[in-house]
Protein backbone atom coordinates (compact mmCIF):
# COMPACT_ATOMS: atom_id res chain seq x y z
CA UNK A 1 0.00 0.00 0.00
CA UNK A 2 1.34 3.44 -0.92
CA UNK A 3 1.63 6.17 1.70
CA UNK A 4 -1.59 7.86 2.76
CA UNK A 5 -2.15 11.08 0.85
CA UNK A 6 -3.39 14.07 2.80
CA UNK A 7 -6.41 14.32 0.50
CA UNK A 8 -7.29 10.73 1.38
CA UNK A 9 -7.02 11.48 5.07
CA UNK A 10 -9.27 14.50 4.68
CA UNK A 11 -11.81 12.52 2.64
CA UNK A 12 -11.98 9.83 5.31
CA UNK A 13 -12.31 12.43 8.08
CA UNK A 14 -15.15 14.05 6.13
CA UNK A 15 -16.84 10.66 5.72
CA UNK A 16 -16.73 10.08 9.49
CA UNK A 17 -18.35 13.46 10.08
CA UNK A 18 -21.07 12.66 7.54
CA UNK A 19 -21.89 9.54 9.54
CA UNK A 20 -21.62 11.28 12.95
CA UNK A 21 -24.44 9.65 14.94
CA UNK A 22 -24.91 12.76 17.09
CA UNK A 23 -25.92 14.83 14.03
CA UNK A 24 -29.25 14.65 12.19
CA UNK A 25 -29.18 11.96 9.49
CA UNK A 26 -27.71 12.78 6.07
CA UNK A 27 -30.11 11.05 3.71
CA UNK A 28 -29.45 13.37 0.81
CA UNK A 29 -26.10 15.10 0.32
CA UNK A 30 -25.25 17.60 -2.39
CA UNK A 31 -21.73 18.37 -3.56
CA UNK A 32 -20.99 21.59 -5.39
CA UNK A 33 -18.34 22.70 -7.82
CA UNK A 34 -14.63 22.25 -7.17
CA UNK A 35 -15.13 19.85 -4.27
CA UNK A 36 -13.26 16.63 -5.07
CA UNK A 37 -12.47 15.75 -1.43
CA UNK A 38 -16.10 16.03 -0.28
CA UNK A 39 -17.17 14.10 -3.38
CA UNK A 40 -14.72 11.34 -2.45
CA UNK A 41 -16.04 11.35 1.13
CA UNK A 42 -19.63 10.99 -0.04
CA UNK A 43 -18.75 8.15 -2.38
CA UNK A 44 -16.94 6.47 0.51
CA UNK A 45 -20.03 6.68 2.69
CA UNK A 46 -22.14 5.30 -0.12
CA UNK A 47 -19.73 2.53 -1.17
CA UNK A 48 -19.52 1.44 2.47
CA UNK A 49 -23.20 0.55 2.11
CA UNK A 50 -24.87 3.45 3.88
CA UNK A 51 -28.25 4.48 2.42
CA UNK A 52 -27.61 7.96 1.09
CA UNK A 53 -28.60 9.86 -2.02
CA UNK A 54 -25.84 11.91 -3.67
CA UNK A 55 -26.53 14.86 -5.93
CA UNK A 56 -23.31 15.91 -7.58
CA UNK A 57 -23.72 19.29 -9.23
CA UNK A 58 -20.91 18.86 -11.72
CA UNK A 59 -21.53 15.29 -12.81
CA UNK A 60 -21.85 15.34 -16.58
CA UNK A 61 -23.31 11.97 -17.53
CA UNK A 62 -26.33 11.14 -15.44
CA UNK A 63 -26.41 14.62 -13.90
CA UNK A 64 -29.22 14.44 -11.33
CA UNK A 65 -30.72 17.83 -12.11
CA UNK A 66 -33.33 18.28 -14.79
CA UNK A 67 -34.18 21.92 -14.06
CA UNK A 68 -30.66 23.17 -14.60
CA UNK A 69 -28.40 24.51 -11.88
CA UNK A 70 -31.36 26.21 -10.20
CA UNK A 71 -32.58 22.85 -8.95
CA UNK A 72 -29.84 22.36 -6.32
CA UNK A 73 -30.87 25.59 -4.65
CA UNK A 74 -34.57 24.82 -4.95
CA UNK A 75 -34.02 21.36 -3.48
CA UNK A 76 -32.18 22.96 -0.60
CA UNK A 77 -34.86 25.61 -0.18
CA UNK A 78 -37.40 22.80 0.07
CA UNK A 79 -35.42 21.27 2.92
CA UNK A 80 -34.56 18.14 0.94
CA UNK A 81 -30.75 18.51 1.22
CA UNK A 82 -29.45 17.43 4.61
CA UNK A 83 -25.77 18.19 4.21
CA UNK A 84 -23.53 20.36 2.05
CA UNK A 85 -19.82 21.21 1.97
CA UNK A 86 -18.22 24.61 1.80
CA UNK A 87 -14.64 25.81 1.69
CA UNK A 88 -13.26 29.29 1.81
CA UNK A 89 -10.33 31.44 0.80
CA UNK A 90 -10.50 32.68 4.38
CA UNK A 91 -12.39 31.11 7.30
CA UNK A 92 -12.48 32.77 10.69
CA UNK A 93 -13.05 31.66 14.26
CA UNK A 94 -16.80 32.35 14.05
CA UNK A 95 -17.06 30.14 10.94
CA UNK A 96 -17.55 33.14 8.69
CA UNK A 97 -16.56 32.26 5.13
CA UNK A 98 -14.80 34.48 2.64
CA UNK A 99 -14.92 33.14 -0.89
CA UNK A 100 -14.81 36.59 -2.49
CA UNK A 101 -11.34 37.94 -1.76
CA UNK A 102 -9.04 39.78 0.60
CA UNK A 103 -8.69 43.53 0.99
CA UNK A 104 -11.31 46.01 -0.14
CA UNK A 105 -14.53 44.68 -1.64
CA UNK A 106 -14.74 42.86 -4.07
CA UNK A 107 -11.34 41.40 -3.33
CA UNK A 108 -8.84 44.07 -4.35
CA UNK A 109 -6.10 42.18 -2.44
CA UNK A 110 -6.29 38.58 -3.59
CA UNK A 111 -9.49 37.82 -5.49
CA UNK A 112 -10.98 34.36 -4.91
CA UNK A 113 -13.44 32.95 -7.46
CA UNK A 114 -16.57 34.22 -5.71
CA UNK A 115 -19.29 33.15 -3.34
CA UNK A 116 -20.93 30.49 -5.53
CA UNK A 117 -24.11 29.51 -3.65
CA UNK A 118 -22.59 29.82 -0.18
CA UNK A 119 -24.64 32.84 0.94
CA UNK A 120 -27.75 30.70 0.51
CA UNK A 121 -26.62 27.13 1.14
CA UNK A 122 -24.95 27.90 4.49
CA UNK A 123 -28.32 29.13 5.83
CA UNK A 124 -30.65 26.61 4.26
CA UNK A 125 -28.84 23.31 4.85
CA UNK A 126 -29.21 21.75 8.31
CA UNK A 127 -25.54 20.67 8.31
CA UNK A 128 -22.52 22.10 6.55
CA UNK A 129 -19.10 20.53 6.76
CA UNK A 130 -16.29 23.00 6.06
CA UNK A 131 -13.07 21.86 4.47
CA UNK A 132 -9.80 23.48 3.50
CA UNK A 133 -6.58 21.61 3.01
CA UNK A 134 -4.22 24.58 3.41
CA UNK A 135 -4.01 25.22 7.14
CA UNK A 136 -2.10 28.47 7.57
CA UNK A 137 -2.72 31.76 9.34
CA UNK A 138 -3.54 33.41 6.00
CA UNK A 139 -6.48 31.03 5.48
CA UNK A 140 -7.67 30.62 9.08
CA UNK A 141 -7.89 34.21 10.21
CA UNK A 142 -9.19 36.00 13.28
CA UNK A 143 -11.76 37.85 11.17
CA UNK A 144 -12.38 37.40 7.44
CA UNK A 145 -11.83 40.49 5.27
CA UNK A 146 -15.18 40.00 3.57
CA UNK A 147 -18.06 37.77 4.63
CA UNK A 148 -19.54 35.84 1.74
CA UNK A 149 -21.55 33.73 4.18
CA UNK A 150 -21.78 34.31 7.94
CA UNK A 151 -21.21 31.47 10.42
CA UNK A 152 -24.00 32.54 12.74
CA UNK A 153 -27.01 34.80 12.35
CA UNK A 154 -28.86 37.20 14.58
CA UNK A 155 -31.93 35.82 16.38
CA UNK A 156 -34.99 36.06 14.12
CA UNK A 157 -33.05 35.51 10.89
CA UNK A 158 -34.31 32.37 9.17
CA UNK A 159 -31.56 29.77 9.27
CA UNK A 160 -31.74 25.98 9.29
CA UNK A 161 -28.18 25.26 10.32
CA UNK A 162 -24.53 26.17 10.10
CA UNK A 163 -21.11 24.53 10.25
CA UNK A 164 -20.89 21.16 11.94
CA UNK A 165 -17.11 20.93 11.66
CA UNK A 166 -14.04 22.07 9.75
CA UNK A 167 -11.56 19.60 8.31
CA UNK A 168 -8.10 20.89 7.37
CA UNK A 169 -4.75 19.52 6.37
CA UNK A 170 -3.72 19.52 10.05
CA UNK A 171 -6.79 18.74 12.15
CA UNK A 172 -10.54 18.45 12.63
CA UNK A 173 -12.39 21.29 14.37
CA UNK A 174 -15.92 21.01 15.73
CA UNK A 175 -18.10 24.17 15.52
CA UNK A 176 -20.27 25.35 18.39
CA UNK A 177 -22.86 27.77 17.03
CA UNK A 178 -24.19 28.68 20.48
CA UNK A 179 -20.85 30.30 21.31
CA UNK A 180 -19.72 30.82 17.68
CA UNK A 181 -16.36 29.15 18.31
CA UNK A 182 -14.45 26.12 17.14
CA UNK A 183 -12.99 23.42 19.39
CA UNK A 184 -10.17 21.08 18.40
CA UNK A 185 -11.55 17.58 17.84
CA UNK A 186 -8.47 15.72 16.60
CA UNK A 187 -5.06 16.46 15.11
CA UNK A 188 -3.63 14.58 12.16
CA UNK A 189 -0.56 12.42 12.81
CA UNK A 190 2.54 14.63 13.06
CA UNK A 191 0.58 17.59 14.44
CA UNK A 192 0.11 18.76 18.02
CA UNK A 193 -2.26 21.18 19.72
CA UNK A 194 0.62 23.63 19.68
CA UNK A 195 1.46 23.19 15.98
CA UNK A 196 -2.19 23.68 15.11
CA UNK A 197 -2.38 26.76 17.29
CA UNK A 198 0.62 28.23 15.53
CA UNK A 199 -0.88 27.62 12.11
CA UNK A 200 -4.27 29.08 13.02
CA UNK A 201 -5.08 32.77 13.03
CA UNK A 202 -8.18 32.38 15.21
CA UNK A 203 -8.44 31.18 18.80
CA UNK A 204 -10.24 27.92 19.49
CA UNK A 205 -11.16 25.77 22.46
CA UNK A 206 -9.29 22.69 23.63
CA UNK A 207 -10.82 20.30 26.14
CA UNK A 208 -8.76 17.50 27.69
CA UNK A 209 -6.48 15.36 25.57
CA UNK A 210 -6.88 15.82 21.88
CA UNK A 211 -6.67 12.49 20.02
CA UNK A 212 -5.07 11.87 16.66
CA UNK A 213 -7.29 11.70 13.63
CA UNK A 214 -7.41 7.96 12.90
CA UNK A 215 -5.61 6.72 9.78
CA UNK A 216 -7.75 5.59 6.87
CA UNK A 217 -8.12 1.82 6.98
CA UNK A 218 -6.83 -0.41 4.24
CA UNK A 219 -10.42 -1.00 3.17
CA UNK A 220 -11.15 2.72 2.95
CA UNK A 221 -8.00 3.31 0.91
CA UNK A 222 -8.89 0.47 -1.43
CA UNK A 223 -12.33 1.94 -2.00
CA UNK A 224 -10.94 5.42 -2.61
CA UNK A 225 -8.25 4.31 -5.01
CA UNK A 226 -10.45 1.85 -6.89
CA UNK A 227 -14.20 2.26 -7.37
CA UNK A 228 -14.37 5.82 -6.01
CA UNK A 229 -11.64 7.02 -8.32
CA UNK A 230 -13.62 5.36 -11.15
CA UNK A 231 -16.69 7.40 -10.25
CA UNK A 232 -14.74 10.66 -10.03
CA UNK A 233 -12.57 10.43 -13.14
CA UNK A 234 -15.04 12.18 -15.41
CA UNK A 235 -15.61 15.18 -13.15
CA UNK A 236 -12.21 15.53 -11.48
CA UNK A 237 -9.57 14.09 -13.81
CA UNK A 238 -6.73 16.24 -12.46
CA UNK A 239 -7.55 15.39 -8.85
CA UNK A 240 -7.66 11.68 -9.67
CA UNK A 241 -4.34 11.89 -11.48
CA UNK A 242 -2.66 13.80 -8.67
CA UNK A 243 -4.04 11.94 -5.66
CA UNK A 244 -4.74 8.46 -6.95
CA UNK A 245 -2.11 8.45 -9.70
CA UNK A 246 -4.78 7.54 -12.25
CA UNK A 247 -4.38 8.90 -15.78
CA UNK A 248 -7.32 9.45 -18.05
CA UNK A 249 -7.52 7.16 -21.06
CA UNK A 250 -6.46 9.09 -24.14
Amino acid sequence: MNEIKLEERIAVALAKLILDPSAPPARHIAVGAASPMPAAACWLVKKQGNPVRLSLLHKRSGNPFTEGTRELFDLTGQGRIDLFFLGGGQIDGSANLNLVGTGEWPGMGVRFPGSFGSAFMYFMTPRTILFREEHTPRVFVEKVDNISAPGVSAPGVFRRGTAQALVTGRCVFRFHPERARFSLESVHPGETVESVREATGFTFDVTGDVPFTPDPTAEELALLRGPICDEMMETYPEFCARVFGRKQAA
Partner: protein
Amino acid sequence: MNPISLEALAAEVPDGAMLALPPDNSLPSVALAKALIRRGVRNLRLLGVPVSGFATDILIGAGCVTSVQTSAVSLGEAGFAPRFSAALRAGTIKVIDATCPAIHTMLQASEKGVPFMPLRGLIGSDILANRPDWKVVPNPFAQEGEDPIVLLPALNPDFVCFHAAMADEEGNVWVGRRRECATIAHASKRALVTVERVVPGNFLEDERLASGAINATYISGIAIAERGARPVALLDEYGFDGAYVSEYARMARSEEGFAAWCAREVFEQKAQAAE
Protein backbone atom coordinates in the same frame (compact mmCIF):
# COMPACT_ATOMS: atom_id res chain seq x y z
CA MET B 1 -35.91 30.53 -38.93
CA ASN B 2 -32.91 30.24 -41.22
CA PRO B 3 -29.48 29.96 -39.62
CA ILE B 4 -27.16 32.87 -40.27
CA SER B 5 -23.38 32.88 -40.14
CA LEU B 6 -21.56 32.94 -36.85
CA GLU B 7 -20.09 36.34 -37.68
CA ALA B 8 -23.57 37.68 -38.53
CA LEU B 9 -24.86 36.37 -35.21
CA ALA B 10 -22.04 38.14 -33.38
CA ALA B 11 -22.89 41.34 -35.25
CA GLU B 12 -26.32 41.33 -33.60
CA VAL B 13 -24.81 42.23 -30.23
CA PRO B 14 -24.21 45.97 -29.97
CA ASP B 15 -21.52 47.55 -27.82
CA GLY B 16 -22.72 48.08 -24.27
CA ALA B 17 -25.23 45.21 -24.24
CA MET B 18 -25.97 43.21 -21.13
CA LEU B 19 -25.13 39.67 -22.17
CA ALA B 20 -26.00 36.59 -20.09
CA LEU B 21 -23.71 33.56 -20.40
CA PRO B 22 -24.05 30.10 -18.87
CA PRO B 23 -20.89 28.70 -17.27
CA ASP B 24 -18.65 25.81 -18.29
CA ASN B 25 -21.01 23.08 -17.14
CA SER B 26 -24.02 24.42 -19.00
CA LEU B 27 -23.62 24.99 -22.74
CA PRO B 28 -21.72 28.23 -23.20
CA SER B 29 -21.15 29.19 -26.82
CA VAL B 30 -17.40 29.58 -26.87
CA ALA B 31 -17.63 29.86 -30.66
CA LEU B 32 -19.81 32.95 -30.33
CA ALA B 33 -17.59 34.42 -27.62
CA LYS B 34 -14.67 34.11 -30.03
CA ALA B 35 -16.73 35.67 -32.83
CA LEU B 36 -17.60 38.57 -30.51
CA ILE B 37 -13.89 39.11 -29.91
CA ARG B 38 -13.27 39.12 -33.66
CA ARG B 39 -16.11 41.57 -34.17
CA GLY B 40 -14.40 43.84 -31.59
CA VAL B 41 -17.45 44.36 -29.41
CA ARG B 42 -16.88 46.76 -26.53
CA ASN B 43 -18.34 47.56 -23.11
CA LEU B 44 -20.27 44.34 -22.66
CA ARG B 45 -21.95 43.95 -19.32
CA LEU B 46 -21.67 40.21 -18.70
CA LEU B 47 -23.96 38.20 -16.47
CA GLY B 48 -22.80 34.75 -15.31
CA VAL B 49 -25.74 32.40 -14.83
CA PRO B 50 -25.05 31.70 -12.11
CA VAL B 51 -21.23 31.68 -12.41
CA SER B 52 -18.73 32.48 -15.14
CA GLY B 53 -16.05 30.47 -16.86
CA PHE B 54 -13.87 30.25 -19.91
CA ALA B 55 -15.94 32.41 -22.30
CA THR B 56 -16.09 35.24 -19.76
CA ASP B 57 -12.34 35.17 -19.19
CA ILE B 58 -11.47 35.39 -22.90
CA LEU B 59 -13.96 38.23 -23.49
CA ILE B 60 -12.43 40.13 -20.59
CA GLY B 61 -8.92 39.42 -21.85
CA ALA B 62 -9.82 40.79 -25.27
CA GLY B 63 -11.07 44.05 -23.76
CA CYS B 64 -14.73 43.50 -24.66
CA VAL B 65 -16.09 43.82 -21.14
CA THR B 66 -16.87 46.69 -18.82
CA SER B 67 -18.61 44.84 -15.98
CA VAL B 68 -19.33 41.31 -14.77
CA GLN B 69 -22.22 40.34 -12.55
CA THR B 70 -21.66 36.80 -11.32
CA SER B 71 -21.46 34.44 -8.36
CA ALA B 72 -17.95 33.23 -9.17
CA VAL B 73 -15.43 33.21 -12.01
CA SER B 74 -13.33 30.11 -12.35
CA LEU B 75 -11.71 27.77 -14.86
CA GLY B 76 -12.61 24.74 -12.74
CA GLU B 77 -9.69 22.39 -12.19
CA ALA B 78 -7.45 24.79 -14.16
CA GLY B 79 -7.83 27.30 -11.34
CA PHE B 80 -8.65 31.00 -11.08
CA ALA B 81 -9.63 32.91 -14.22
CA PRO B 82 -6.46 34.86 -15.07
CA ARG B 83 -7.77 37.71 -17.24
CA PHE B 84 -10.69 38.31 -14.89
CA SER B 85 -8.35 38.55 -11.91
CA ALA B 86 -5.97 40.85 -13.77
CA ALA B 87 -8.76 43.16 -14.97
CA LEU B 88 -10.25 43.38 -11.50
CA ARG B 89 -6.85 44.27 -10.06
CA ALA B 90 -6.22 46.82 -12.82
CA GLY B 91 -9.63 48.37 -12.27
CA THR B 92 -10.64 47.94 -15.92
CA ILE B 93 -13.81 46.00 -15.08
CA LYS B 94 -16.46 46.46 -12.46
CA VAL B 95 -17.37 43.27 -10.59
CA ILE B 96 -20.85 42.92 -9.14
CA ASP B 97 -20.94 39.88 -6.87
CA ALA B 98 -24.08 37.82 -6.36
CA THR B 99 -24.74 34.31 -5.09
CA CYS B 100 -25.93 31.52 -7.38
CA PRO B 101 -29.60 31.25 -6.41
CA ALA B 102 -29.89 35.05 -6.42
CA ILE B 103 -28.97 35.16 -10.11
CA HIS B 104 -31.52 32.45 -10.85
CA THR B 105 -34.13 34.26 -8.80
CA MET B 106 -33.62 37.61 -10.54
CA LEU B 107 -34.05 35.87 -13.89
CA GLN B 108 -37.09 33.94 -12.68
CA ALA B 109 -38.67 37.25 -11.71
CA SER B 110 -38.24 38.44 -15.30
CA GLU B 111 -39.47 35.08 -16.56
CA LYS B 112 -42.63 35.56 -14.54
CA GLY B 113 -43.10 39.23 -15.32
CA VAL B 114 -42.91 40.37 -11.71
CA PRO B 115 -40.71 43.22 -10.48
CA PHE B 116 -39.02 41.20 -7.71
CA MET B 117 -38.79 37.85 -5.97
CA PRO B 118 -37.76 36.95 -2.43
CA LEU B 119 -34.86 34.68 -1.49
CA ARG B 120 -33.81 33.19 1.83
CA GLY B 121 -30.28 33.42 3.13
CA LEU B 122 -27.96 36.34 2.34
CA ILE B 123 -28.61 38.35 5.50
CA GLY B 124 -25.32 39.15 7.21
CA SER B 125 -23.31 38.59 4.05
CA ASP B 126 -21.18 41.34 2.54
CA ILE B 127 -22.63 40.38 -0.82
CA LEU B 128 -25.92 41.84 0.36
CA ALA B 129 -24.12 44.78 1.95
CA ASN B 130 -22.62 45.63 -1.46
CA ARG B 131 -25.90 45.34 -3.39
CA PRO B 132 -27.83 48.58 -2.90
CA ASP B 133 -30.31 47.24 -5.48
CA TRP B 134 -31.31 44.39 -3.14
CA LYS B 135 -33.75 45.13 -0.33
CA VAL B 136 -34.46 43.54 3.03
CA VAL B 137 -38.10 43.69 4.14
CA PRO B 138 -40.09 42.07 6.93
CA ASN B 139 -41.83 38.91 5.68
CA PRO B 140 -45.50 39.95 5.48
CA PHE B 141 -46.54 36.34 6.11
CA ALA B 142 -44.38 35.83 9.22
CA GLN B 143 -46.10 33.90 11.99
CA GLU B 144 -44.19 35.87 14.59
CA GLY B 145 -41.44 38.47 14.73
CA GLU B 146 -40.12 40.48 11.83
CA ASP B 147 -38.52 37.62 9.89
CA PRO B 148 -36.41 39.77 7.55
CA ILE B 149 -36.14 38.47 4.00
CA VAL B 150 -34.29 39.69 0.91
CA LEU B 151 -36.14 40.89 -2.20
CA LEU B 152 -34.25 40.76 -5.48
CA PRO B 153 -35.21 42.87 -8.50
CA ALA B 154 -36.06 41.28 -11.85
CA LEU B 155 -33.09 41.11 -14.21
CA ASN B 156 -33.79 41.34 -17.94
CA PRO B 157 -30.57 40.89 -19.97
CA ASP B 158 -30.46 42.33 -23.47
CA PHE B 159 -29.07 39.07 -24.83
CA VAL B 160 -28.28 35.54 -23.86
CA CYS B 161 -25.87 33.42 -25.89
CA PHE B 162 -25.56 29.67 -25.52
CA HIS B 163 -24.71 26.60 -27.53
CA ALA B 164 -27.44 24.02 -28.13
CA ALA B 165 -27.00 20.54 -29.51
CA MET B 166 -29.35 21.19 -32.42
CA ALA B 167 -32.06 23.34 -33.96
CA ASP B 168 -35.03 22.14 -35.98
CA GLU B 169 -36.70 23.56 -39.09
CA GLU B 170 -39.02 25.72 -36.99
CA GLY B 171 -36.19 27.39 -35.10
CA ASN B 172 -36.72 25.48 -31.86
CA VAL B 173 -33.44 24.56 -30.17
CA TRP B 174 -32.63 21.56 -28.04
CA VAL B 175 -30.62 21.79 -24.81
CA GLY B 176 -31.54 18.50 -23.12
CA ARG B 177 -31.48 18.75 -19.36
CA ARG B 178 -29.65 22.09 -19.30
CA ARG B 179 -32.92 23.85 -18.81
CA GLU B 180 -31.41 26.92 -17.19
CA CYS B 181 -30.78 27.98 -20.78
CA ALA B 182 -34.57 28.06 -21.19
CA THR B 183 -35.00 30.21 -18.10
CA ILE B 184 -32.35 32.65 -19.32
CA ALA B 185 -33.95 32.76 -22.77
CA HIS B 186 -37.34 33.48 -21.19
CA ALA B 187 -35.86 36.25 -19.07
CA SER B 188 -33.77 37.90 -21.81
CA LYS B 189 -34.86 40.23 -24.56
CA ARG B 190 -33.10 38.21 -27.24
CA ALA B 191 -31.49 34.77 -27.37
CA LEU B 192 -28.68 34.08 -29.85
CA VAL B 193 -27.89 30.42 -30.16
CA THR B 194 -25.17 28.43 -31.86
CA VAL B 195 -25.91 24.78 -32.66
CA GLU B 196 -23.99 21.76 -33.82
CA ARG B 197 -26.51 21.10 -36.58
CA VAL B 198 -29.99 21.80 -37.91
CA VAL B 199 -32.27 18.79 -38.23
CA PRO B 200 -35.58 18.30 -40.10
CA GLY B 201 -38.93 18.31 -38.33
CA ASN B 202 -40.22 19.97 -35.18
CA PHE B 203 -38.98 19.02 -31.70
CA LEU B 204 -42.31 20.04 -30.21
CA GLU B 205 -44.03 17.25 -32.12
CA ASP B 206 -41.71 14.64 -30.64
CA GLU B 207 -42.67 13.78 -27.08
CA ARG B 208 -39.11 12.57 -26.35
CA LEU B 209 -37.48 15.81 -27.46
CA ALA B 210 -40.08 18.42 -26.53
CA SER B 211 -39.15 18.68 -22.86
CA GLY B 212 -35.52 19.51 -23.68
CA ALA B 213 -36.48 22.02 -26.37
CA ILE B 214 -36.73 25.80 -26.18
CA ASN B 215 -39.57 27.12 -28.31
CA ALA B 216 -38.52 29.28 -31.27
CA THR B 217 -40.64 32.12 -29.88
CA TYR B 218 -37.76 32.88 -27.50
CA ILE B 219 -34.97 32.57 -30.10
CA SER B 220 -33.82 35.59 -32.12
CA GLY B 221 -30.98 34.08 -34.13
CA ILE B 222 -29.26 30.78 -34.83
CA ALA B 223 -25.87 29.98 -36.36
CA ILE B 224 -24.29 26.61 -36.98
CA ALA B 225 -20.99 26.24 -35.12
CA GLU B 226 -19.70 22.70 -35.04
CA ARG B 227 -17.99 21.93 -31.74
CA GLY B 228 -19.21 25.35 -30.69
CA ALA B 229 -18.93 24.69 -26.96
CA ARG B 230 -15.28 23.54 -27.17
CA PRO B 231 -13.29 23.34 -24.93
CA VAL B 232 -16.41 22.95 -22.79
CA ALA B 233 -18.43 19.72 -22.86
CA LEU B 234 -21.70 19.35 -24.77
CA LEU B 235 -24.18 16.99 -23.10
CA ASP B 236 -23.43 13.43 -24.26
CA GLU B 237 -21.83 14.63 -27.50
CA TYR B 238 -18.31 15.59 -26.46
CA GLY B 239 -16.34 16.03 -23.27
CA PHE B 240 -14.39 18.80 -21.59
CA ASP B 241 -10.98 19.50 -23.10
CA GLY B 242 -8.99 20.01 -19.93
CA ALA B 243 -5.65 20.25 -21.74
CA TYR B 244 -6.90 23.15 -23.86
CA VAL B 245 -8.10 25.06 -20.80
CA SER B 246 -4.91 24.32 -18.86
CA GLU B 247 -2.82 25.67 -21.71
CA TYR B 248 -5.03 28.75 -21.82
CA ALA B 249 -4.71 29.23 -18.05
CA ARG B 250 -0.95 29.05 -18.38
CA MET B 251 -0.64 31.40 -21.33
CA ALA B 252 -3.22 33.89 -20.07
CA ARG B 253 -1.30 34.56 -16.88
CA SER B 254 0.27 37.51 -18.70
CA GLU B 255 -1.27 40.01 -21.06
CA GLU B 256 1.27 39.07 -23.73
CA GLY B 257 0.55 35.39 -23.27
CA PHE B 258 -3.15 36.05 -23.64
CA ALA B 259 -2.54 38.11 -26.78
CA ALA B 260 -0.55 35.26 -28.30
CA TRP B 261 -3.23 32.75 -27.36
CA CYS B 262 -5.94 35.00 -28.76
CA ALA B 263 -4.11 35.59 -32.03
CA ARG B 264 -3.69 31.87 -32.49
CA GLU B 265 -7.00 30.53 -31.17
CA VAL B 266 -9.46 33.29 -31.98
CA PHE B 267 -8.17 34.98 -35.12
CA GLU B 268 -5.94 32.42 -36.86
CA GLN B 269 -8.28 29.48 -36.29
CA LYS B 270 -11.05 31.44 -37.90
CA ALA B 271 -8.86 32.43 -40.83
CA GLN B 272 -7.91 28.78 -41.30
CA ALA B 273 -11.51 27.66 -41.08
CA ALA B 274 -12.45 30.19 -43.74
CA GLU B 275 -9.81 28.94 -46.17
